[in-house]
């Protein structure tokens, strides 16, 4: 059934997840074209993907392999000493599925060399350090002719559930406009193994961590609320009137507001007549004549 033939409006309903459904084949086609063209424009032929063993990075690895061919994809597994052994198993499984050679670089020594001097450190702060060490390796391995692919999904980006200059950093992000549940749906047709698609999402920054445990709500809940707030521009009061949990809606809305600084370029103090980011506005894809 096409959208034009749909009978009945899309309404906010906490029990109706159907508005989140996507045409996976179309999205796959669009994302492969995106990766192919946006690397070609900047003269790159090779990409780097950090494969964590989770569904998001597995999906990105699949898209990269399809776009560039496995030999042009540098797949990295970057564990810390506390990383779940299952993460390694799943990262290897994903790499094998898509014909990628998975290179493992343990980040324990470089993380501990710094954190060891600090004594007792909050686990979130430790996690941020790990995410940034991983990214520094990805960028190093991209040199001199590769680009780093991001794996942050739309849910994480909107909730600010990521580390600046860590997992959020990248040159191109093919999956940043897909909510977690949509990306999971896409990963099925990309051939991501079932065991990876179905496991509980985790940043694996400390033992026993799960995204949904840390966030305090499920991705299914967050995605539906974000979809109506962001994509369909409904107000929180309209969602609450439609039966969504008021505390949850307000919590999510507030997370989006509070984390907005993470989604924009750094602010530059304007003093001159023309300023980078303010009124010096050129497209990134500005091509040579």
């Amino acid at each position, binding site marked *: 059934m096409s959208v034009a033939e749909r009978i009945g409006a899309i309404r906010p309903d906490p029990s109706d997840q159907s508005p989140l459904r996507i045409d996976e084949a179309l999205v796959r086609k*669009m994302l492969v074209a995106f990766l192919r063209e946006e690397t070609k424009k900047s003269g790159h032929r090779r990409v780097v993907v950090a494969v964590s063993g989770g569904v998001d990075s597995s999906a990105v690895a699949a898209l990269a392999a399809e776009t560039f061919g496995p030999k042009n994809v540098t797949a990295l597994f970057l564990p810390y000493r506390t990383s779940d052994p299952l993460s390694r198993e799943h990262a290897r499984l994903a790499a094998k599925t898509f014909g990628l050679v998975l290179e493992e670089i343990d980040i324990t020594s470089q993380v501990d060399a710094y954190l060891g001097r600090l004594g007792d450190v909050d686990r979130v702060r430790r996690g941020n350090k790990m995410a940034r060490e991983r990214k520094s390796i990805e960028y190093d391995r991209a040199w001199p002719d590769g680009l780093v692919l991001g794996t942050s999904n739309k849910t994480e980006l909107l909730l600010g559930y990521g580390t600046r200059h860590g997992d959020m950093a990248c040159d191109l992000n093919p999956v940043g406009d897909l909510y977690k549940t949509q990306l999971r749906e896409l990963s099925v047709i990309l051939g991501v193994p079932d065991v990876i698609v179905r496991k509980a999402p985790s940043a694996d920054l400390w033992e026993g961590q799960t995204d949904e445990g840390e966030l305090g709500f499920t991705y299914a809940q967050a995605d539906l609320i974000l979809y109506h707030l962001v994509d369909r521009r409904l107000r929180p009061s309209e969602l609450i009137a439609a039966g969504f949990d008021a505390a949850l809606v307000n919590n999510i809305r507030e997370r989006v507001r509070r984390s907005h600084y993470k989604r924009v370029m750094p602010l530059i103090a304007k003093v001159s007549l023309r300023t980078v980011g303010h009124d010096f506005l050129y497209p990134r894809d500005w091509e040579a004549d």
Partner: protein
Amino acid sequence: MTVRIAIAQCAPALGAFKRNVAMHEEWIGRAQSARARLVVFPELSLTGYYLKDLAGDIACAAVDERLKPIADASRRIDVCAGFVERAPDARLHIAQGYWSGGRLVHVHRKVYLPTYGIFDDGRYFGPGERFEVFESAVGPTGIAICEDLWHVSVPYVYAATGATVVLSPASSPGRGVAEGGDLGTAESCRLMDRFYAAYLTLYVIFVNRVGHEDGIAFWGGSEVVAPDGTVVARAPEFEEHLLIADIDTDLVARERDRNPLIRDERPDLVESHLARRTGLVRRPDVAVERS
């Protein structure tokens, strides 16, 4: 009479004028080989779309020397292509030129400059102010650049002032990937093309580009819809494609004999209603006068 046309569903390079001129020459050659009498390129085909501050750098006058290769090519085949026009008063316009017999015969300046969502035309460009019908290879034609076509009044005005063809060059970004449907933008555009063609009984020629700019994908899907509502030809989505279509110019007459909506249309009533609404009074002795 049958007139063969070509639609160049291409991917212009952003901000690279010379490369785009060379690209045009290549597609013009291919259209000629297909024995087309006219080749139509998308909106801003010579410059790329999301120009931002590049707009002023890449602009040229409608008669600029840099457009000469396009004018020269039009000695062999009519060419309709998009560029940034620097008007004599220094304003910048999103322009679509029509070249024939070695010279520029018509320019349409985009009137409706979208400045919402992913669009920011109004920040960088000034609006055009006219909808003029001119004689193209396929008959009396009006050009509606992308957003122009979304305003119902535009194809209506063209139909009411003699056009039998509405030519719509576009840089339409693809978005909306809900399950079970076509691309959201594609559905909207096809609905418009078919509706306008059938109810204004004219040809709608929709010419969209492909390629990416700053993460945004232009979806292609160019098509020619006949006055009886049939899709004469349609290009694939997201891929470069030279679409060839034969326009039966007599079909307009046959369709308008069968379905004389345009003959029976009352633009005078539309005009007087709108004149009252906008504070203009129309009297028998004076065409239009401010009240």
